[in-house]
């Protein structure tokens, strides 16, 4: 069996085991699942653990639906980097005749989607995207900058049989907005905290330089730039492969990318820099089930203590 075939087999086997144990509920589309009560309970307890580490920092909590304003999306620069991942919401906006045509196509099992028109709604690509225009609208940042706590379902169009690569998944993030020094200190703090949190959960891990999945030839250059400048680190845990471990946390320095895109300024008028720590909560739950087994009651006591299980 080739390496690729072996990897796909391991992914399919883990997905099937998760479904057989009732943790994930298949929905007929690769990368889209329902979650069981137990799966959600593990995630809720993990979120509480994160809050125990970061909850005293005074972050402002913001919760958004899993979609953003299309104009904001267009201004974010996302399409320059990741056109292949974006999910735009389209709706029927026709008249009675168009409706009849739609039904006819549906009955004939022909493509009925050609007439769908783009709405003002785009699926959230990363949990932090909605916060930047909100901060920009407030005017200059205070001297201490800003710290935001966000949690959202996100969408990325990358169908996969790997249960650790879902199309609809949740990110818990802390986002720091301020001077380069403020945001770099924040990122280092969370590399240390994130490593401590996951080490205490008894999973094998390492932290490494990473790059985002930028599109095309231009993307290869953007990825090389991102690595050369060590803008992104990931905390990787083997889930379906030890050779290709899964990024469960990421620690990102965006430089002034969002500060520029949204005109966010520090108290002294400089363009704001931003950084974030993101927890891929489904991936973390999957890593825990992978390494400690499907029976939560049989997980090591130290891990259960951490999660209050």
């Amino acid at each position, binding site marked *: 069996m080739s390496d690729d075939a072996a990897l796909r087999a391991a992914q399919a086997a883990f997905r099937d085991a998760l479904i057989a144990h009732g943790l994930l509920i298949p929905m007929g589309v690769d990368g889209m699942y329902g979650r069981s009560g137990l799966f959600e309970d593990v995630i809720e307890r993990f979120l509480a653990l994160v809050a125990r580490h970061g909850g005293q920092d005074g972050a402002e909590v913001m919760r958004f639906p899993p979609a953003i304003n299309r104009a904001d999306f267009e201004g974010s620069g996302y399409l320059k980097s990741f056109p292949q991942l974006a999910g735009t919401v389209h709706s029927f906006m026709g008249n009675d005749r168009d409706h009849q045509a739609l039904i006819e196509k549906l009955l004939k099992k022909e493509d009925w989607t050609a007439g769908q028109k783009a709405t003002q709604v785009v699926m959230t690509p990363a949990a932090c995207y909605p916060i930047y225009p909100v901060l920009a609208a407030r005017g200059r940042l205070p001297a201490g900058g800003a710290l935001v706590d966000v949690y959202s379902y996100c969408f990325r169009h990358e169908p996969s049989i790997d249960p650790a690569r879902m199309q609809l998944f949740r990110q818990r993030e802390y986002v720091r907005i301020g001077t380069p020094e403020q945001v770099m200190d924040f990122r280092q703090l969370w590399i240390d905290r994130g490593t401590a949190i996951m080490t205490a959960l008894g999973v094998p891990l390492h932290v490494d330089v990473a790059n985002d999945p930028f599109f095309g030839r231009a993307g290869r250059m953007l990825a*090389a730039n991102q690595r050369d400048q060590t803008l992104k680190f990931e905390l990787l845990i083997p889930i379906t492969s030890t050779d290709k471990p899964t990024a469960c946390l990421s620690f990102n320095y965006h430089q002034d990318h969002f500060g520029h895109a949204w005109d966010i300024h520090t108290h002294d008028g400089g363009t704001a820099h931003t950084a974030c720590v993101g927890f891929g909560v489904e991936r973390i739950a999957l890593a825990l089930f992978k390494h400690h087994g499907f029976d939560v009651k049989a997980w090591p006591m130290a891990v259960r203590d951490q999660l209050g299980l």
Partner: protein
Amino acid sequence: MIRDVIREGGGLAVDIATLGDGDDLYAAGLTSHATVNLMLGLEEKFDIEFPDRLLRRRTFESIEAISAAVTELLDEKVAA
């Protein structure tokens, strides 16, 4: 010619005429996305294609570095 392409696509914070051949273009305001525009502009101007091994930050760090890469690609084209 390289300076023309930078002026058009580089989005620098300063006038390219004020920079020396060895000056750091990133320090002069060249962003990652502008580097992509610059690469595409150079490819069009010189009818070349940057291979993956040259899709690196340092390839575009100065006029000197860009000139070396473009010369190399033009030489390869003649040799091919």
